[in-house]
């Protein structure tokens, strides 16, 4: 069992608040990813859970037991550091067994656990090597192995892939997902990379400025972002935003007049929205279509195109100078300065009020 409950957690350094009151639940066997821009407090939050930083106020509970002020070693958590933090003068085997040796576990049991971890991570041929004789990926696996041998209630990962090269990162990401299934373990994972967040997580926690912006499954966050920040943070390329004004709104539909000239009706329950109040319309790059002149809702001017082979990302400018990215077929490449006509399905649009909050749940679920 590993149920983590965080209640109104705050942390400040020298009077500057870093974590500004966080409530969070992590359930048993869940893979939770903390994601956010740098400086959002995600690493600090992880270190607070690990016990490496002292909590300013609030509580952390693990399985109903208050661990807020408990020493890090007694919390039954294991952490994998960004820099791996392997002990450089010990062999891989000693690195793996260090915690167990310190705890005075019987030699035979230590050996068995180390062998087991080495087998899971394919480290068996490397047990006699020193960390500096290993490649980046192997060091990473040793760091994970050091956590596995302790059989902790929760695994904590602090940006574990950011020191690996791109190819190895993809491979290790898959291994981590496999490991999570194999060990049936509870994991908390910090990253600034939204691809890692989307692919690994059961539950994503989007942090910004020391607060939780939204918690939910990756698809929930992608399809129903709670606010402008989450909408803009998740998804590559970024969601396009268009400024506009609300028109007539009721429980089933909402008229929006965009600054760039278009006028449309969205299937949103926006009853509370006053006519004339400023709104932002968000559309993801893949929901735009290029259509023949006269059939679309928007007219834009092509700027730069990035051709990836499978897709082309066209950066375009609207009449009101807003930059949008649209994703189209890989064989399509507009010239810079060319005028394009865009169409998009109102069902796939997101609407945000003046405070940046998403206006209402859409009536239709996105496919």
């Amino acid at each position, binding site marked *: 069992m590993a149920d983590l409950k965080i209640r109104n957690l705050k942390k400040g350094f020298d009077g500057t608040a870093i974590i500004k009151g966080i409530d969070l639940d992590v359930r048993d066997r869940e893979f939770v990813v903390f994601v956010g821009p740098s400086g959002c407090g995600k690493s600090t939050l992880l270190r607070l859970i690990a016990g490496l930083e002292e909590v300013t106020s609030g509580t952390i509970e693990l399985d109903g037991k208050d661990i807020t002020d408990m020493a890090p*070693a007694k919390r039954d958590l*294991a952490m994998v550091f*960004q820099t791996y*933090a392997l002990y*450089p*003068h010990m062999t891989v085997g000693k690195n793996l067994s*260090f915690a167990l040796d310190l705890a005075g576990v019987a030699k035979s049991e230590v050996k068995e656990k180390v062998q087991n971890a080495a087998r899971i991570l394919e480290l068996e041929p490397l047990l006699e090597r020193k960390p500096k004789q290993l490649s980046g990926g192997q060091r990473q696996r040793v760091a994970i192995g050091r956590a596995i041998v302790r059989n902790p209630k929760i695994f904590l990962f602090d940006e574990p892939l950011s020191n690996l090269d791109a190819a190895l990162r993809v491979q290790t990401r898959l291994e981590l997902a496999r490991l999570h299934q194999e060990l049936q373990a509870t994991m908390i994972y910090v990253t600034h990379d939204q691809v890692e967040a989307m692919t690994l997580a059961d539950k994503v926690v989007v942090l910004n400025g020391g607060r939780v912006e939204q918690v939910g499954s990756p698809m929930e966050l992608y399809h129903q972002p709670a606010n402008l920040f989450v909408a803009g943070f998740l998804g590559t390329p970024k969601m396009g935003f268009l400024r506009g004004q609300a028109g007539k709104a009721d429980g089933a539909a909402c008229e929006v007049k965009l600054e760039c000239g278009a006028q449309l009706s969205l299937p949103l329950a926006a009853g509370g929205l006053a006519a004339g109040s400023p709104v932002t319309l968000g559309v993801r790059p893949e929901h735009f279509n290029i259509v023949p002149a006269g059939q679309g809702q928007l007219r834009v001017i092509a700027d730069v195109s990035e051709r990836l082979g499978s897709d082309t990302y066209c950066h375009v400018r609207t009449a009101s100078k807003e930059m949008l990215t649209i994703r189209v077929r890989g064989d399509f490449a507009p010239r810079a300065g060319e005028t394009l006509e865009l169409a998009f399905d109102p069902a796939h649009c997101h609407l945000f009020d003046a405070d940046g909050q998403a206006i209402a749940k859409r009536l239709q679920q996105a496919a």
Partner: protein
Amino acid sequence: MTTSTLDTHLKSAPAAAGGKRRSLKPGWFLVSPSVALLLLWMIIPLGMTIYFSLIRYNLLYPGENQFVGLENFEYFLTDAGFMPGALNTLALVGSVLLISVVFGVLIAALLEACEFWGRGIVRVLLISPFFIMPTVSALVWKNLIFHPVSGILAAIWKFFGAQPVDWLAQHPLLSIIFIVSWQWLPFAILILMTAMQSLDQDQKEAARLDGAGPIAIFWHLTLPHLARPIAVVVMIETIFLLSVFAEIFTTTSGGPGFESTNLAYLIYNHALLQFDVGMASAGGLIAVVIANLAAIVLIRMIGKNLTNQ
């Protein structure tokens, strides 16, 4: 103009191949002054020392400089002062090394472990004895600390009603070890303190999560991390400690008897107190051999440590 330079290049090309051996000459010629100077600097004193060590050369008997073979070496090695001198040198180097490494590590760890007000000042104070010249510090110890009448230690002894100890007379070698340790401990602290700051914080935190307390962290992480700087301290201190002289000269003059005489002082004693330049030269050569032996052993032991990690 371009054609003319091209021409000369073309002409000189075949000549250069044949004249390669000759072209070395100017290079040799240009570096020769510094090479010659270095050689003279080294060879002349060494040659003179070897020459003096093979003749009878006593300033009290001028003109009687006949060749005596290895007699000077024999006399030096069988001199009453040689064995005590060699053993004292060993004891002095060994114990100062031990004291400066052990206390150096502990003090550096303590400074690193706790944040307190005025840490910067404490650091400077800890390092400052290193900047005091040996003669001065020996005089300070002799007159202000060890002195049986006016010294601080005598005052403390008297405060507790004990008979003050005349340190330099009763425990001469121990006193000199104290003085020299006081001078060299700061060097160890300086090197180890800076080395300690380069210990990866993540490793310490990982060890904390692994259940290591402060002592386990010190033993399993800090000490192995310090292996290399400790090797550096041992190597450099050995070189300087083999030739400790001023401290002995200003305090005990090697006495009483040969109790605080080391090899460097013994050689001085022969050359400038007994005026036997020949024997002193022989002693100097023996000291050179011993220093080289020590250097070889150290480099074998520690040099491996330096390159391997």
